[in-house]
């Protein structure tokens, strides 16, 4: 897979090198549109498809896609936008939903509202709050990041379970199965990066909760029952030795592909990585994301997911129109996005397309895209607000204390006060 990444990256570079001819940003009537995105396998590829599809619409528009690491994009955006210069900035940039509000709030004039280019009604509802600001729509919702629980059916069977047992399940039930599987096969349930609390984020979103209040600013930790429950479940899994630690992405993928773990709770974008180990074909299934026990919660959540933003620089109208006519309209693009990338979009009309009905032999013939699409509609809408990652840093620290045996309420209170200090 790495080789493939490298290859794609290089071809990207070559492509961008080829198309980088004349860039006159000062020209208001420019036909050159620059796009920044990360992940050549998914985001960049999707943009390539959109570019191809748009050629039928407007062949004069010259779209240049530049691949950058997400951290680099964030850094460059912050540096440029905070100094008020737009020199060298792209027309379109991909921003993760968790971070979007922070940008929109900090630099409201630097983004161009796309209300005229898309119909927000047509997108998954949960995507709208993170991508809009003060009643205006700024982001064109892209991938859903809809979460699922990927499970090894062969391991489950050894412990006497099937993927049926995971339908509409809550975490208590899942942990029980995990324990049984571990007993039967010796394989741990999940693998976890102790710094990355994506699992907890997915858990709390099932009940419509987040690290912040609905205003997107006030930390909501001490009295956040969903978060407390997620903490508790996390500790339970660790105490039961169901969690295999990993330190980075490659170790994460290695654990999955080596068959070290029985379940992967993650966003749908993990599908290509799981399918990369072809020998495991037919041994996987995708179950709905488990809900939190004992509270209002649904079997649907989200991890990651990002949207396209148009910067308020010359070429913005054309850029917005391009996004609206591809990501925000029915057409060839969505079909190809599903068929060629296996992605799940957030444009509702497309979710009913034939492509989503395809059965995936790797997942035992399961129509995973169709399932993801239906779960997408159920994802509770939350406001990710401004400080997702600031608070997550605090929580990652505090949860260690909890795991070490400190009282949960004390830990949460402590986290709350730290968050109030740091997240303003």
């Amino acid at each position, binding site marked *: 897979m790495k080789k493939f990444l490298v290859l794609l990256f290089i071809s990207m570079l070559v492509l961008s090198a080829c198309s980088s001819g004349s860039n006159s940003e000062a020209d208001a009537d420019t036909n050159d549109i620059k796009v920044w995105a990360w992940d050549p396998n998914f985001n960049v590829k999707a943009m390539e498809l959109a570019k191809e599809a748009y050629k039928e619409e407007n062949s004069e528009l010259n779209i240049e896609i530049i691949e950058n690491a997400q951290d680099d994009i964030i850094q460059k955006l912050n540096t440029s936008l905070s100094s008020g210069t737009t020199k060298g900035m792209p027309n379109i940039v991909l921003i993760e939903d968790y971070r979007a509000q922070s940008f929109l709030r900090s630099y409201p004039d630097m983004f161009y509202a796309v209300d005229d280019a898309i119909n927000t009604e047509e997108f998954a509802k949960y995507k709208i709050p993170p991508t809009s600001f003060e009643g205006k729509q700024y982001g064109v919702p892209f991938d859903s990041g809809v979460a699922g629980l990927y499970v090894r059916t062969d391991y489950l069977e050894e412990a006497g379970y099937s993927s049926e047992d995971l339908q509409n399940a809550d975490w208590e039930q899942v942990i029980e199965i995990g324990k049984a599987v571990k007993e039967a096969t010796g394989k741990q349930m999940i693998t976890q990066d*102790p710094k990355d609390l994506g699992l907890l984020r997915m858990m709390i979103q099932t009940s419509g909760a987040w690290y912040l209040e609905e205003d997107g600013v006030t930390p909501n930790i001490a009295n956040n029952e969903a978060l407390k429950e997620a903490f508790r479940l996390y500790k339970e899994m660790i105490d*039961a030795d169901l969690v295999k630690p990993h330190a980075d992405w490659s170790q994460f993928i*290695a654990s999955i592909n080596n068959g070290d773990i029985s379940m992967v709770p993650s966003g749908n974008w993990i599908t290509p990585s799981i399918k990369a180990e072809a020998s495991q074909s037919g041994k996987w299934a995708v179950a709905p994301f488990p809900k939190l026990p004992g509270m209002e919660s649904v079997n649907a959540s989200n991890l990651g997911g990002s949207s396209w933003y148009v910067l308020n620089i010359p070429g913005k109208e054309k850029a917005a129109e391009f996004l609206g006519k591809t990501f925000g309209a029915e057409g060839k693009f969505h079909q190809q996005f599903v068929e060629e990338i296996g992605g799940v979009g957030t444009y509702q009309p497309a979710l009913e397309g034939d492509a989503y009905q395809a059965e995936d032999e790797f997942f035992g013939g399961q129509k995973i895209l169709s399932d993801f699409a239906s779960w997408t509609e159920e994802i509770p809408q939350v406001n990710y607000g401004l400080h997702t990652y600031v608070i997550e840093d605090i929580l990652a620290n505090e949860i260690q204390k909890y*795991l070490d045996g400190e009282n949960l309420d004390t830990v949460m209170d402590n986290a709350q006060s730290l968050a109030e200090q740091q997240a303003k």
Partner: protein
Amino acid sequence: MRFIKDRLHPNGLFMKLFFITVSLIMLVAVTVTLATIRMAEQFFVEKFSITNSQIINQIQNDFEELNYSIVMAATDISQSNTIETYLLTDEQPDNERILRLFLVMRQIDNLREQLGDQNVEIAIADQTEIVYTTNFTYWPAASIDMRAHHITQSVTAEPNKLLYFQASQGNADDYVVAAKTLMNRETDQAYGAVYFPIKEEQLRSFYQDYVKAGNDFYVLNQEGKVVSSSITNTIGTSLPELHQQAETMVMDGELFQEINKEDTSKIMVAEYLPYFNMYLVNMVDKQAAVGNLIDTKQIIFLLAGVVVLALVIVFLVTKRLTNSLSKLVNDIEAVPKKGLKRRLDYTGTYETKQIGLAFNSMMDELQGHVEKLLKAQKQQRQAELAALQQQINPHFLYNTMASIKFLVMMGERTEAEKTIDAFITLLHNTIGNVDESITVELELANLKNYVLINQKRYGNKIQVQFMVAPDCMQCQIPKLILQPFIENSFFHAFHKTAAGTISVLVWKEADELLCEIADNGDGMAADGKELPNTNRNRQLFSGIGVKNVHERIQLLYGTDYGVTIASKAGEGTTVKLRLPAIHTEPDEENVI
């Protein structure tokens, strides 16, 4: 060609002077220019190298700072119990490991943060594989067996050192990896290693600002491999030659070196990076560095301009100097053709003026001498002639005296008286009159007296007629100029023919006075154009013979005048004298 040569020939001095001066100017110009360019180049190279070695020192500092921060991080990691425990205790259950992992990650993340903006990441490994890396896209970017890795093996061999390695991965980014073994201080057992993958761009950024066209940097490790370079395609390749040069340079403490590689000349500055155990090499294309400073084209144009200007000036000045000389030479050459009276006229330089002056005074003197000489010669000649004409032949005297005695004896008193009168007048006119020239009238009187005397002696068989144009009577002629011819006819023309007539004709034709003495005597053979030498004849009246007459006339009047003789055997002889018609006393000064 011949024309040019002829033109140039008199200017031999000019040509020599001009060409020598031109060659010297060229020589001086070229030598001075070359020396100047060389000196300037050396100066620039030296300055440039000093600046560059300062830059190199700056870069070296940056490298050392990076090394220092890495060393600090490595020390922190090697002293961390948390990390040691995590790496050592593999057997613990995962639920405890996950807590420890978090702490390890936190600590390493903090250390990473302390490294700041630099493109350096941290990876720690236990004895088999990478356990945690702050950026998984960096080296080694794939889970590989670290035990077999050459970096691990090298650091294990030197456990207390932080070592730097070059790590390229095909088409991916190039890295320099700093690595150190993690050792337990008490047991001296290695429990893992820490790696600091540094993006090559980071090292490049230290010197990137100084990179220009023709100014390149290389960082070479001990194997001569390029670790970092401004010429990116050389990264990872081996340049053992360059490494060897750098090593020698640093060892010898040389500041810079000039290297002639292929057809380019380069200035090389090298510095050892001690902690990295690498060489930082700066190669500057001399052409790019110095070539721009010295505009050879402009210098050559300027030089050519100055030389041409100098040539023009030299040409003009030399021409002016040598012109007066060559004119002098020309004039001197012309002197023999044009006569001694020619004088030089000079306006040239002091020297040529002096030469002209000296020449003129020399010519004056010479002319004076020649004139004196001529005058002396003439005087001598005249003295000679005078002497000759004074010399009355004694035979003539006593023959005449004998004739008179005979007449007296015969009693012909009247005849004797007449003869004595004629003899007295003749002697008076020839000996008594000291003048050179006399009138035609007087000469005729002398002739008549001479004829009378001869007729008294020899009888009247030979008659003499005088036909003289009246306007000739007062013309001046040299004394005794006609007498020798009559004498000649008297004694030589009438051997076969006993009687005859001698006619003397004198007339004027234009400016010339013509005298003709014709006899109807024997005549001479066709070839007898020359007059007989009668000098030794005892019957002669004076020392002047016919032979002298021609010479005398020419001496007196020039070559236009003289004597011509026409004679035919049996018919007589005609002698014709051509003389200038001079009425007044002639000015002898004008003759020369």
